[in-house]
């Protein structure tokens, strides 16, 4: 059986050879990282298929690279990132408490809004600079799958450890462990109101989303009765002293000790927390869960509308390996549908993917600077993807229909313009570096510079017609070419606008 699967995997990867290597390398980096940096595509393409496969395997192994140490050093001043929930409560008290209790601001690190700033900055620093790109992409995927909303009460003080300790360690592990860690987290229990669910006084919120959003999916085959019974099973799962310790705790006295019946599970009522654990394990191994997670991964990495076969193939691996995530990601990577020519560039970037890929493609620095964060915040807010602030438990959508509309496009254009004009304090775009190979050249035609950028920065994804349009647009306002015989130095051309418009092209909105 296993042999057959391995054979099928090798066989399907053979089809990959149909696509030219450069396209393949670009496709891999677009789908499994936050976008290529200059030179990265060529380097990967030169190594051929073995290099591409190795890149993916290295990503699964989190081999890292030269940037990891820098990131660690850069993020060190952001104190909240390493704090326990208890330290968070102590060092980032609510603004109201600071005023009412007359706390000395020198003895604290800040207020909850500072936690959010540091959290957002660390996410973007890692997403843009980390060599473990797949880890960062998947961290976003899984956090979003197990979404919690920053501004719901004490989620503020527990969200950092939630991402760090419940989600991140399990990205390349087992689904069940991540599910269990999310269930046994203060942030999730608070966010989905399980903290208030007691015997004879149940709260259905977490139980419902555990089925609908975390495991089986809404069509996964369960009833309202199953939700109510599960809520009873999970009574007592709560948080110890949310304003001090703020860690997950099972409260025996709040647990419903009477018999319960959920799906095919019967509980005598005597096992306490063990009942909930058994339920979670059962849900994690359910066939509907395999299908639901497979579909979600396929939508994220392969296509907005993946075929049933693709989803089934991935689900099969997930199910047979009992939720082994590395095996599941390999199944995604080796899916035939991923490698179809028509699938290249078929996904639309989310606002986060647009921002991070813009930073990476221009090889900009992203500074771990949590102050003056308004420009970034506003970009995400206007785009409808406020990081850590998705109110509903569904998380953000991964399909184009959600992200593509005129307001959002205008927002992206404005962001690109701000970015190249150095108006975003965290992003340092080194234009000198970008143009250094051509800085002493003289150009007769602006289009030649656009072509240079397209080939050397944008991996030639921008179509000729689009470049012509940018050229016409900028020529209209900058009459540089009245005398065609004259050659002008590079700096005579509107390089800022060129770059911003290239970042705003339809081609660059795709991955």
């Amino acid at each position, binding site marked *: 059986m296993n042999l057959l699967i391995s054979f099928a995997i090798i066989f399907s990867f053979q089809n990959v050879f149909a696509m030219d290597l450069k396209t393949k390398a670009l496709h891999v980096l677009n789908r499994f990282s936050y976008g290529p940096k200059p030179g990265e595509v060529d380097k990967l393409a030169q190594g051929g298929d073995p290099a591409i496969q190795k890149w993916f395997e290295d990503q699964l192994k989190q081999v890292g690279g030269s940037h990891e140490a820098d990131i660690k050093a850069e993020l060190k001043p952001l104190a909240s990132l390493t704090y326990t929930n208890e330290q968070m409560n102590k060092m980032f008290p609510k603004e109201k408490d600071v005023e009412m209790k007359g706390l000395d601001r020198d003895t604290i690190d800040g207020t909850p809004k500072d936690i959010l700033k540091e959290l957002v900055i660390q996410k973007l620093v890692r997403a843009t600079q980390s060599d473990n790109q797949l880890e960062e992409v998947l961290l976003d995927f899984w956090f979003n799958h197990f979404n919690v909303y920053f501004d719901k009460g004490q989620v503020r003080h527990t969200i950092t450890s939630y991402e760090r300790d419940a989600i991140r360690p399990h990205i390349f592990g087992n689904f069940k462990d991540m599910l269990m860690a999310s269930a046994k987290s203060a942030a999730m229990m608070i966010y989905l109101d399980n903290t208030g669910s007691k015997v004879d006084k149940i709260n259905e919120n977490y139980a419902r989303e555990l089925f609908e959003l975390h495991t089986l999916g809404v069509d996964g085959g369960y009833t309202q009765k199953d*939700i109510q019974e599960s809520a009873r099973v999970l009574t007592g799962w709560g948080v110890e002293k949310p304003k001090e310790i703020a860690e997950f705790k099972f409260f025996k006295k709040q647990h419903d000790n009477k018999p319960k019946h959920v799906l095919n599970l019967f509980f005598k009522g005597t096992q306490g927390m063990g009942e909930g654990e058994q339920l979670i394990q059962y849900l994690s191994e359910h066939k509907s869960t395999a299908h639901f997670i497979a579909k979600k991964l396929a939508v994220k990495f392969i296509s907005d509308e993946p075929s049933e076969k693709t989803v089934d193939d991935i689900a099969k691996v997930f199910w047979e390996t009992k939720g082994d995530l590395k095996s599941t990601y390999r199944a995604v990577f080796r899916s035939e549908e991923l490698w179809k020519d028509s699938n290249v560039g078929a996904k639309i970037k989310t606002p986060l993917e647009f921002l991070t890929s813009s930073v990476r493609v221009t090889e900009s620095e992203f500074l771990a600077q949590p102050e003056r964060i308004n420009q970034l915040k506003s970009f995400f807010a206007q785009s409808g993807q406020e990081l850590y602030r998705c109110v509903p438990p569904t998380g953000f959508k991964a399909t184009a229909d959600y992200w593509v509309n005129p307001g959002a496009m205008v927002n992206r254009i404005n962001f690109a313009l701000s970015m190249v004009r150095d108006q975003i304090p965290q992003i340092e775009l080194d234009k000198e570096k970008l143009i250094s190979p051509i800085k002493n050249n003289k150009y007769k035609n602006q289009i030649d510079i656009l072509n240079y950028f397209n080939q050397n920065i944008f991996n030639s994804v921008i179509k000729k017609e689009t470049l012509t349009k940018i050229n016409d647009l900028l020529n209209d306002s900058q009459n540089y070419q009245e005398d065609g015989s004259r050659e002008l130095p590079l700096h005579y051309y509107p390089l800022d606008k060129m770059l911003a*418009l290239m970042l705003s092209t339809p081609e660059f909105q795709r991955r």
Partner: protein
Amino acid sequence: MKRRDFLKQAGLLGVLPYLNWSETFLSHSALAETLKKAKAANKTLIVVFQRGAVDGLSMLSPIGDKNYNTDIRPSLYINPQQMLKLDSYFALHPSLGGLKNLWDKGMLTALHQVGSPSTSRSHFDSQDYFEMGTPDVKNTENGFLTRAVNEMKNTGDLKLTSLSVQTNLARMISGDRKSLAFNDLNRFSIKGFGPVPSNNTGTSPGNGFESFFETALDEVMKGQNKNSISLLQEFGEAQKVKIENEFPKGGFSNHLKDIARVIKSGLYIPFIVTEVGGWDSHRDQGNEKGQLANRLKEFGDSINAFVEALGPKMQDVTLVTVTEFGRTVKENGSKGTDHGHGSCYFVVGQNLKPKSIHADWKELKNENLYEGRDLPVNTDFREVFADVLETNFAIKDFSKIFPGYTAKKKLKMFKT
């Protein structure tokens, strides 16, 4: 209908011998027709989606129903003395003073035990079912307001038929080729490229920008509005509109303010959609004070401010508030409410029959509750929209807008 038929016949008269007479007659009738068209053509419907399933029983409480009491809602129940009475049976939440003001002016209609017949208690499925206009049917290809646009006449000259003032294009208007979304009117312009000119004279940077991004949008947006970027100019007028009266603070309030500015600028769009969140009150919902009370305050005051801002323009505007489902009749274990079924909607407008509540109220006895726990749905959301669309947009045929559905009753919320 009859008048229209008559005018058509009058048109035929034009080829008959009584030329002078019929010419005069025609010019008069053509004028009448134009006026009528103009009147029918400038109606606007605004749909406000309360996402997260609002507790209808708290928004509009059945104070006359003995079963509504502290036994079922120990911490949520509000003493009727503190509530804003609409009649002897129903009273608004104390935070909804804004809506009470509209009620007193005869501009508010309430609907209770209203919603979708779908059995789903999933926020996300239920919102989709609502917006697609097809309960329990997934993968409907477009929004119900998009199909309403298709039923409307004389939309050919309109630059936009629908607008969504939120970060994404609301599903209610998905598939409409003349739709558009923005989250913030003031930011709907491109920095540093100057104003986008409206005519195509061809030399200014704005124009090139326009054509560049028309292609960009067309390619990325598959099927959405092609001319959206050139519409930046249209909204330039709206950006200049200043609102004098005070709006409360908050995202929803800002959205309604932007909608008021768009309408006041004279840019006509039949359907405008926006949303307001924060209703999923599983825990510590509160009574006259607390979480829900705070959300309702912004909700009601914003709508009241919106009506004031529009002034006489309100003559042509109907605003409907909806939600995906209601919440449990009984309070849950954490002083909140869980996902339920029926809820409460409001309709705001100048041409409503004043001070009406459409409820067909069923008392809150267990046998009357949906699945023994939730507010029932006695009025289908499709009946509500059929009435609004028929009265304001002269739509007669709902077979495509709400496929497979026949209204059980006509609500007749408007003055005829």
